[in-house]
């Protein structure tokens, strides 16, 4: 892993959080914002290390909570829980298939706000909830499912464009070559 992918992931998270505080079009039309952090955690968990997943969860959560009325740090744990869940089953996940990415993005889009709400309610806070919350979770899940494959695609392309491909060692060994013919 080179420095480009972690830098790009963190930069995308930074700009994504900022965009959420500035642009209301998606929220005004569909009633829920376009959360990029859950999808980014999925991408990070699929393509990067546990350390990077933790770093993105901590910084992304801090940035998000600094603009929100959430207690500081509340968003970190749900993001990291989703990330570590994916990292734990990475060997079983078909990470290169778009439908797997869609499913993971949808699950993350729903789970992160749901876990955040669970923590807020456990802390005794009283967030604005109602029937509309189900609709918002559905929108966030759907948007997560749409964004995640796109992000995976973009990050793979950028990684290919900026880094040398990993050298694949050939299985050919000259000392094991079977020489045919007359010696």
């Amino acid at each position, binding site marked *: 892993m080179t420095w480009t992918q972690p830098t790009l992931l963190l930069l995308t998270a930074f700009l994504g959080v900022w965009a959420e505080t500035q642009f209301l079009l998606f929220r005004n039309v569909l009633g829920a914002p376009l959360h990029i952090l859950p999808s980014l955690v999925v991408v990070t968990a699929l393509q990067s290390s546990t350390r990077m997943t933790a770093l993105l969860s901590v910084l992304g959560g801090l940035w998000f*909570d600094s603009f929100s009325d959430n207690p500081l740090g509340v968003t970190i744990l749900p993001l990291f829980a989703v990330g570590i869940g994916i990292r734990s089953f990475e060997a079983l996940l078909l990470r290169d298939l778009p439908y797997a990415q869609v499913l993971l993005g949808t699950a993350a889009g729903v789970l992160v706000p749901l876990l955040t709400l669970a923590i807020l309610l456990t802390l005794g806070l009283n967030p604005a*909830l109602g029937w509309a919350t189900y609709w918002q979770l559905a929108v966030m899940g759907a948007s997560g499912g749409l964004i995640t494959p796109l992000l995976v695609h973009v990050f793979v392309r950028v990684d290919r464009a900026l880094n040398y491909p990993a050298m694949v060692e050939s299985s050919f060994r000259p000392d094991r070559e079977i020489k045919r013919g007359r010696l």
Partner: protein
Amino acid sequence: MLKKTHYIAFTVVLALVLALLKLPDQTSARFKLAVSSLFLPLFGASTAVGRVADATGIAVQPKSYIVRQNEVLRKENADLRLLQQQANELLAENQRLRQSVGWQKQLPWKSRLGQVIARDPATWWHTIQIDLGSRDGVQLNMPVLTNQRPDGRIALVGKVTVVGESRSRVVLLGDPKLRVAALVQETRDQGVVGPGKGAALSTDFVELGYLSRNSILKPGQTVVTSGDGGLFPKGILIGTVVDSQSVDYGMSFDARVKLAADFGKLEEVWVIQP
């Protein structure tokens, strides 16, 4: 499956989160403002882009339109000057009468114009950040108003809940953390404005609760602040009654109120300083 590194990472993150959640409220608020100040260059850039767009818009306006606008504004200015004179006379009369009956003198409002620089990204809170802070004289619990309405009337937006040096957080009407003492202007029925049933989705409606069971509410009636509690000055527009229903087995009334301020289009706000 979970590996040793996963356990270590989870423990470290959990410890960090617990430490952050245990921070005292003031420290946490300051830390939040410090973290969000990392985004200041982006706020500056977006403001600059907005200014350039405005300047471009002005530059491409035809001269005839600007002249027409100027005429309209001149007329409006003359009308407002006349109204100001009448208001000054009434204010002086009011002060004399208050003095004669021994009431406390009413102080005029002082206000500061601020720009909305960020909105709460979480759907379950309704807050904004503005570019005014303690160095501009902003203090906790100061009322925040807007005049971004077609009729130019001033409407209540919320109150200041966190104050930084150059930025503050404002909690908006409809947020679960804000309740405002209010009255129906036509009938003088008093109640409390709080979040509406659809607060999670819509920021357009709030609920006026704890109204007397004898209240006579009609759609279109105006709801203003009652001044009770001393936080918000009396008579600031909140919204208009949409419908009402009896609650608690007919013991009281709740009314749905459409907010006068459009939070989706909020760009500038006035912070009222006592």
